[in-house]
Structures are given as C-alpha cells and as structure tokens.
C-alpha cells in the first residue's frame, strides 16, 4: 500500500511537530523546538524497524520517497514566495548584519568540516541523493541489495 508510506510519513511529522510544541512549552519558548528534527528521527527509527522486521515493502518505500523526490520542487516554490523585495531594500544595516554573519558562518563550516577526517560518504548516501534529486529511474538495479547488506 502506497498510502501506508505516506501515512507513516504524516504520522511521524504530526507526532514530531507535536513533541516540538510540547518541548517549546516546557522550555517557555514561543516556538516549536526541533519538531521537524524529532519527526526525522522518528522516521529514521521507523525505517530501521521496518527493515529489521521485513515490513519495508516497495510500496511503503515509494509512498515516502515520492515526497523526498518532491523536496526540490517544493523548495523552488518556497524560494518563489520569499519576501525578496524586503531583503533587497533593507538598507546597509540589514545587508551588513546578514552578509557578515553569513561570511563568518561559512568560515566556521570550513573549520568544522576540517576537524576530523573527510569522507565522501557511503554508496547509500549517494543513492539517497539520487532519490532526493528526483531521479528514481537512475538508481542502479541492485541498490536495494546494497542497502540491505549495509543494514545487516
């Protein structure tokens, strides 16, 4: 059932966002604290469980991965509704504060990514990238075998 995958994704998202709201209330913050991150962790755990119990069918997988593949189009739509006019017309204080913190954060990424070894990532990471890039058909035929053996 494809809907089972979509429903699993929806359930993880709802529970995660709810827990994020609760966490926000507990901390006395007027915001959701890490709701989406919690949802992601729930989905990762659900996937591990499904693989382990042999319940991860092609259809369940497709139901989730379809939305992963829609990620970039959704981000493009998100870009198309930003308040770019406000960003461009903010004046020097806005430009300096924004670009200054941007530059210093990029530098910190460079520093942190040099801490410890660099590795380009596993084949599973690359395969995930192909799905998120929206190219299901370019997956190698034996990809499921690779991920199954890595999970073992």
């Amino acid at each position, binding site marked *: 059932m494809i809907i089972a995958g979509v429903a699993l994704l929806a359930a993880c998202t709802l529970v995660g966002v709810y827990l994020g709201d609760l966490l926000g209330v507990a901390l006395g913050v007027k915001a959701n*604290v890490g709701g989406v991150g919690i949802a992601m962790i729930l989905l990762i755990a659900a996937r591990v469980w499904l693989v382990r119990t042999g319940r991860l069918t092609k259809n369940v997988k497709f139901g989730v991965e379809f939305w*992963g593949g*829609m990620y970039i189009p959704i981000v*493009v*739509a998100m870009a198309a509704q930003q308040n770019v006019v406000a960003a461009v017309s903010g004046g020097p204080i806005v430009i300096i504060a924004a670009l*200054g913190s*941007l530059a210093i954060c990029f530098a910190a990424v460079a520093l942190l990514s040099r801490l410890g070894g660099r*590795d380009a990532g596993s084949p599973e990471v690359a395969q995930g990238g192909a799905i*998120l890039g929206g190219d299901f058909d370019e997956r190698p035929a034996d990809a499921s075998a690779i991920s199954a053996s*890595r999970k073992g």
Partner: protein
Amino acid sequence: MWHGLEHVFVEQSLVAAFAVVGALILVSNVAAKKLTNGRVHGSAIAIVLGLALAYVGGVFTGGKKGLADIPALAGIGLMGGAMLRDFAIVATAFEVDVVEARRAGLVGVLALALGTLLPFVVGTLTAVAFGYHDAVSITTIGAGAITYIVGPVTGAALGADSTVMALSIATGVTKAVGVMVGTPLVAKLIGLDNPRSAMAYGGLMGTVSGVAGGLAATDPKLVPYGALTATFHTGIGCLVGPSVLFLTVRAIVG
C-alpha cells in the same frame, strides 16, 4: 479566453503550482546543461530564478509573499509553504545513513552553538555601529541575524518597537536568501561535500529555508543531514534570544 485560463489557475491553485514549478525546473535543467555545461546544478538555477520571480512578484503586487501574491499563482504559497516544506524535509530523513548521522552528532551540536552565537554577535555589533544603544533593540537585531523567526519572537518577548522588528526580520530574510544563493558558490571552498560537513553546515546556517534551498542547489544527497541539525536551530535561538543573550547584552550596555 485569457480570463478563462486565469479562472482555471485560481480554481486549481495547487495543481497549477505543480505545473508552473515543474516547467521552471525543466527550463533550469536545460539551461544548466546547455549554458553551463553541467557545472551549475539545475536546482541552483531554479532556486535563483524562483527568488528573482519572487522579487518581480513583490514589486508587481506590493505584497510580502512574492509570486504567491498573484492570484493565479497562489498555489505556490501552498506548495512552498511551511506545511509541505516540513513534510518533504521529514521525508528526506528516509535516505539518512544512520551510521553517518551518528558519527557527526557531536559536530552538529557544536555547530548549533556556534550558529546561534556567531550571527548574534555580528548582528549586535552592526546594530551598535549604526547607533543603537538600548539592550532591547540591539538584542532584537542580533536575534534577526540568527533567523527571521528568532528575530521577531525575541523582539516581541522584549517589547521592541516595530521599526527595529522590521529591520530584524529583513536581516533574517536577507540571510536566508544569501544562504540559498551563496551555498553552491562556496560549497567547494568550505568542504561541503559529505554528510558530516552538511550537519555542521545545517547547525551553523540555521535558517531552515536557507539550508533547504542551499543544499538542494549544491547536492541533494546532503539535504537530510543538514536539515536534521537546522531544524533545531530556530527553537534554540528562540530559547536563548530573549533570555541568556538579552541578559548578556543588558549587562554589557547597561
């Protein structure tokens, strides 16, 4: 005839958005292949095009939601809104390699701490340089440099005035746009090519829309790792902004 077409677009807003965004991405992919020889990612072009169209839409309608303020394109607002954005971000977690994510956990936490502090310091110093002397305004503008949600949440909690709030939000939005456009340009330079650095990047940049766009434009395989840390960023910012950071600023400026 034109009126009839517009009517269909208004009535089928989300479906119309799928068609429009799909066409935009198709054009961008062709442009990436033909014009840049594949050196620039098609999605990077699509995101920059999206931002450019948002500018045009904003100037044309005078609204705050870019293209989505044009009635025939209102579906873009739903498609790219927080609900579907978060839904798709969670879906990317399905491609996470647990081993990689766990290995980068500590880096992610460190990045979150730095990603809150560094922009705040830059923001507050800028505010002081432009003549702001009261702790509330300085903190609000500094918080805006963290993300465009932390800014107004902090400002509202502290009772900042509306001009300062507007500046704070504009700073956050400019940062988000800068992250989307800048990331693919500097990715090689800062070593952003593996899950580990993507987690550091997500925690440091924070702004979910910026990180979502920046990583999509750079390399889709990095998206879930960056998103995992970035989604904690705004919450942490909202937590420390009106509390620890404000008290620190007040202790310094008196």
